[in-house]
């Protein structure tokens, strides 16, 4: 096939947006899962749980989409990155399994409610941490030999990947707090504001640490950000981050119901943009570009036809299901 059209940019966009959607959607419900553990009584725990019960499953579906889209559109990246993060992924999948079944089980298995409550809270926390570690391992890069990962299954474990793991706990915590402020009232909302302030502090410290650390250990990334004219082009990113952080702080302390969530989304978008700027156009960092790792044009075009048609449909009915459960959590909808 003489590829007249280059499908890589559109697949980059789809994968990029898909992963971002996953981070936002499962991010807030994993965050809610962590904050669930801090709720003092049964009534508030039930309300917190019901704020995400009808939608978490759809949110997690974006993880599967991210995985298979990477496999289909950039198979070389899939074949190198996934074995390299063998253990973080294992831990993430097992933790997510525990938290996923906890929705049904804690409600139906009353004798072991405490066990499943712990499963839900720790599962959410450990799953988040493992995702953050995976991100850190990705940014630090992998040992590659030809088309294979050539390092050991424990290469992922570094102080940097642990930092990104902790960062994501605060980040998802902030998203979760934003969601709870949006969906609940009274004492639960007040607690969410308090936890949100704590998470925001943590997030900002972590963002600062990662932003200083990365260019220090990686000269290419330092070059990318600090050389002229990039420094002028990219300096709005940290400036905007500071501004959005201030907005988040104002929303947490004010009376806004949606402000925290919106600002948290903004912080995630800017951090995401920061990573893209640092690594572009690499998909296997420092080794293979998006174009080198791409699947054949025949593969990408075949999948694109259906995706361009179905993705808007998915967005429509997913929005509909969110719309059905709009507003503050109702006491009579969800598990009791």
């Amino acid at each position: 096939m003489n590829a007249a059209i280059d499908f890589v940019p559109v697949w980059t966009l789809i994968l990029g947006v898909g992963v971002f959607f996953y981070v936002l959607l499962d991010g807030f419900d994993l965050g809610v899962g962590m904050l669930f553990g801090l709720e003092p009584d049964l009534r508030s725990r039930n309300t917190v749980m019901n704020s995400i019960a009808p939608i978490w499953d759809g949110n997690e579906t974006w993880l599967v989409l991210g995985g298979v889209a990477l496999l289909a559109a950039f198979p070389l990246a899939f074949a190198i990155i996934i074995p390299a993060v063998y253990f973080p992924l294992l831990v993430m999948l097992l933790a997510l399994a525990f938290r996923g079944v906890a929705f049904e089980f804690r409600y139906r298995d009353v004798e072991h409610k405490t066990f499943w409550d712990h499963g839900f809270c720790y599962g959410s926390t450990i799953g988040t941490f493992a995702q953050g570690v995976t991100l850190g391992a990705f940014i630090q890069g992998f040992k590659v030999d030809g088309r294979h990962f050539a390092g050991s299954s424990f290469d992922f474990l570094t102080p940097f990947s642990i930092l990104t793991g902790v960062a994501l706990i605060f980040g998802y915590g902030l998203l979760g707090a934003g969601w709870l402020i949006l969906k609940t009232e009274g004492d639960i909302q007040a607690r969410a504001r308090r936890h949100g302030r704590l998470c925001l502090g943590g997030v900002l410290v972590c963002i600062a640490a990662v932003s200083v650390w990365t260019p220090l250990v990686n000269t290419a990334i330092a070059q990318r950000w600090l050389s002229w004219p990039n420094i002028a082009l990219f300096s709005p990113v940290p400036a905007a981050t500071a501004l959005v952080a201030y907005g988040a702080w104002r929303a947490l302390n004010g009376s806004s119901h949606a402000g925290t969530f919106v600002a948290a989304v903004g912080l995630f978008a800017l951090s995401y943009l920061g990573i893209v700027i640092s690594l572009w156009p690499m998909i296997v960092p420092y080794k293979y570009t998006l174009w080198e790792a791409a699947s054949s044009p025949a593969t990408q075009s075949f999948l694109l036809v259906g995706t361009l048609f179905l993705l808007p449909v998915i967005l429509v009915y997913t929005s509909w299901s969110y719309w059905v459960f709009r507003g503050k959590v109702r006491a009579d909808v969800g598990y009791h």
Partner: protein
Amino acid sequence: MELDPVFLSRLQFAWVIAWHILMPAFTVGLASYIALLEGLHFATGREIYFRISGFWIKIFSVAFGVGVVSGVVMPFQFGTNWSRYSDATSNVIAPLFAYEGITAFFLESAFLGVLLFGRKLVPPWAHFASALMVALGTLFSSFWILAANSWMQTPAGYEVIEGRYFPTDWMQIIFNPSFPYRLGHTVVGFYVTTGFVVLGVAAYLIRRRDFAAEGRIMMSMTLWLLTILVPLQIFLGDQHGLNTLEYQPAKLAAIESHWDTGRRVPLILFAVPDQKNETNHFVLEVPLLGSLILAHDVNGEIKGLKDFPTADRAPVAVTFYAFRVMVGIGTLMLVVVGFSWWLRLRGRLYDSPWFQRACLGMAPLGFVAVLAGWTTTEVGRQPWTVYGLLRTADSVSPSLSGFDVLLSLLGYMAVYLIIFPAGALLMLRLIRRGPAAAAASPPVESGRPSRPITVQLEPESRP
């Protein structure tokens, strides 16, 4: 002992998929059954359909939850443990996995929330439509995943460039030679499995007497369905067998434990295959029947295992026994359906204690048959991941040590041995509570009885 990452990765894949497949084996059929019940309730307005549907929706939600979390694990297995397989084949089959995601998973998950929790929030037709969408999602999912699986069994529509596979014809890739048979045989197998679960639960409810009316409706409906599906399944299995004879003769030889090529071969009912000495012990066989069943011709030629290099033979004993377990259960199912007609025509379908006991005993056997069938086809595909092209030993991630895989396998074992038995116990508990409890409990509360109350309250609540 040397830890072999290939063997342990196979064990891990078998472990995670065997547990996972039990859930779709149940939810694919159950989703359709719930949609049917919701449709009947919507059309006739009879409360009893509504109670039965509510009862099964609760059980469905547990099974589906466990199915989702164990399903999320699956695509990552290809990368973590089988990265060389992924690198080689993804240009051809990865889009099929991706299409499964975008056609099925989103459909299921978005409408499941409404099905479980939205009874009071949406009009009845929208609730029924949600049930339909969930059912449709499970069927789309089966379509794509079995297309990918079939391509690994009977690859078509590809070209090989530097050891990697590239697409040449998507229709041939999706509708590869074994796909129509595998799709039919698997989906009908899932429906039959669900059917026998519903039948067993119906027998249990009739025996308990307090929900006998619900039990009778479930039993009658299900036996009608099984009357069509069980014979259909046997026919589809036979057609699938002819397809295997044509495209995967080495697998068929392993299934039948035939060592020598020949015509007018016997059907081996039982034997102890001896792979090392290329022979069978303790053979119980019926003359000529092998050729007749396998090739539909007494003089039909059946290739023996000795025609294939030792390195290309599947593990014979596992394949041979697994197949016989599946066929044995299929035969039992046919017997049960036959007896049900004998009872029905005498007007005694609902009051035969031994038939009810038989139904109870049959309830879990569909799952055993699904696992046995799956084992037959997947172990029978060995030593290949892509039949005849890519060896399993050349598919595993090169970075993995045996210790790595042992650790992850232990992790999967520990977690699955908590989650799956817990899920099973919860489903059994829901069954014990019966349909009435389901109707009284809020997540599946009727929209209709509550409507007058809402109408009364609304004017007052407005200022």
